[in-house]
């Protein structure tokens, strides 16, 4: 599957060098996307994307349905390859390494870059097994260490107090919001650097949404977060920077405050004032 994606990749060595050099003092760039184009067979889904994502910040991607925001976030951990017939050009440097290059092992990338999905997708196993799934598969077997990981991850996802007495129950017995936080805990258990969130609250009720948003603000201290959201208020509430996408292009990318209070592009203004989308 990865072969089809790689066909159109050009390696940009020069770009790799610049990202590693620029880390002195300045906030570190985690993801540096240069001239990214992506096709689903004949459909041109992403057009000349150029973006920089900075460490320990929340970067929100907003835009109407079909604008390519989900496609872009799935390209960042190469989950997009699960769709047959995907092809890309350009580069995405993750910590200086082009992830679209053949030499990049997706398993390594996805160990460092976690993902939370739109619909909560816990495994049909106990809460404990859900959280230990990642560590176990990556070779951690010691029971005491696993117990510790479970507690830390569930605390990190702000759900420990709600589930600590029923760790051996099936995760499907939880409410949607709790399931989503177990999924976040599952993701934290292998200590990634970046967490990608693809509309993590769109299937949740307002109170659960609030809890997840609080959690994201907390997680920002330790992780770099990229979140796709339908909800502009959510982007305004939780993100440091916001990307507005339309028809596969990045229309505007700036500090969240600025994008919402003083958009530079007419299309951004129309979208955030609710004239379309």
């Amino acid at each position, binding site marked *: 599957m990865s072969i089809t994606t790689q066909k159109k990749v050009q390696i940009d060595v020069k770009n790799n060098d610049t990202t590693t050099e620029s880390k002195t003092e300045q906030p570190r760039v985690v993801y540096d996307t240069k001239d990214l184009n992506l096709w689903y067979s004949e459909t041109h889904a992403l057009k000349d994307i150029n973006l920089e994502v900075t460490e320990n910040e929340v970067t929100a991607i907003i835009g109407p349905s079909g604008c390519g925001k989900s496609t872009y976030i799935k390209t960042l951990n190469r989950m997009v390859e699960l769709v047959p017939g995907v092809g890309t050009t350009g580069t995405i440097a993750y910590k200086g390494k082009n992830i679209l290059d053949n030499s990049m092992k997706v398993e390594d990338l996805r160990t460092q870059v976690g993902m939370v999905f739109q619909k909560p997708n816990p495994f049909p196993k106990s809460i404990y097994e859900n959280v230990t799934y990642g560590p176990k598969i990556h070779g951690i077997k010691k029971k005491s260490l696993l117990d510790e990981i479970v507690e830390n991850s569930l605390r990190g996802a702000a759900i420990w107090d709600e589930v600590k007495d029923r760790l051996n129950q099936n995760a499907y017995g939880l409410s949607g919001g709790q399931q989503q936080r177990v999924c976040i805990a599952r993701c934290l258990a*292998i200590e990634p650097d970046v967490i990608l969130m693809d509309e993590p609250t769109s299937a949740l009720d307002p109170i659960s949404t609030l809890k997840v948003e609080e959690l994201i603000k907390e997680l920002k201290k330790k992780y770099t977060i990229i979140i796709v959201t339908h909800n502009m208020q959510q982007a305004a509430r939780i993100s440091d920077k916001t990307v507005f996408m339309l028809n596969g292009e990045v229309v505007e990318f700036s500090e969240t405050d600025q994008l919402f209070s003083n958009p530079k592009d007419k299309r951004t203004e129309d979208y955030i004032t609710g004239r379309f989308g």
Partner: protein
Amino acid sequence: MATNSDSNVNKAVNVSELIAKNKKKKSINNYMEKLVPTILFLLASITVLTTIGILYTLISEAVHFFMEVPILDFFTGTELKPLSQNPEFGILPLLNGTIISSLIAILVAGPIGLMSAIFLSEYASDKVRRIIKPLLEILAGIPTIVYGFFAFTFVTPLIRTFWPQLEATNILSPGLVMGIMIIPMIASLSEDAMTSVPNGIREGSLAMGTTKLETTVKVVIPAAFSGIIASFVLAISRAIGETMIVTIASGSSKNFSFDITESMQTMTAFIVEVSGGEAPAGSTLHYSLYAVALTLFVFTMIMNLLAKYVSRKFREEY
């Protein structure tokens, strides 16, 4: 204007009058509306009544048999000599033949069927799946008499070329061929169970840096486990009830042995042999047929109940 509105009013009245008229005619329809569920219920109860009828026949005839042969002797006897001077009616040789042949069949079909299911649901492209699945299901459509002949005239001679101890009729080759016969059942049902595992769960696992194989083994198979087990149990129950293959390829020695190169008789093959005409009506031998059939019935019924129980017990909710 006036005529216009008049005609409008007339029209409306006409329609509602027509509907009212038609409603009176509909009384037959109303009658049907009540009758149809009754007819459907009667048709549906035919299956249930048939089962009850068969069970009644089996039990009432088997009672005759158990009046002549103590029930304990029947279930613990290792000798089945219905035609000797001192006839003995122990069912163990038949049970043994049935269990051994089904065991061989599931040992063949289990791994092959499960691997095929994994390939079809996790690895094959849509195109490949659309070609292979119907081909697999053709295997299930071959008449069992053809399988029996295949076992007797092809598989046995083939194995004998490198394993000469194998008798001309033996329990091994019908077991193997029954295994081939039930592969599609396991493959198809297990594949259904694995395909119905939601994709989100696979993605959740892959997104944590696991390989496809790890995801299949650690997430998809456990999630589909109840369906897979149910397919195994149903396949075993199919093998237990299989008649033609063993009758042709395993001969009729009522042999209580664990040597798979020897000829053995299964419960089904015994019923074929006896109902073939040797037994005078009213004789113990004749009644023994019902006792064996009842045992077989109970056996397959237990397997089917087990399938239901297991699939409920191991269901992982998603």
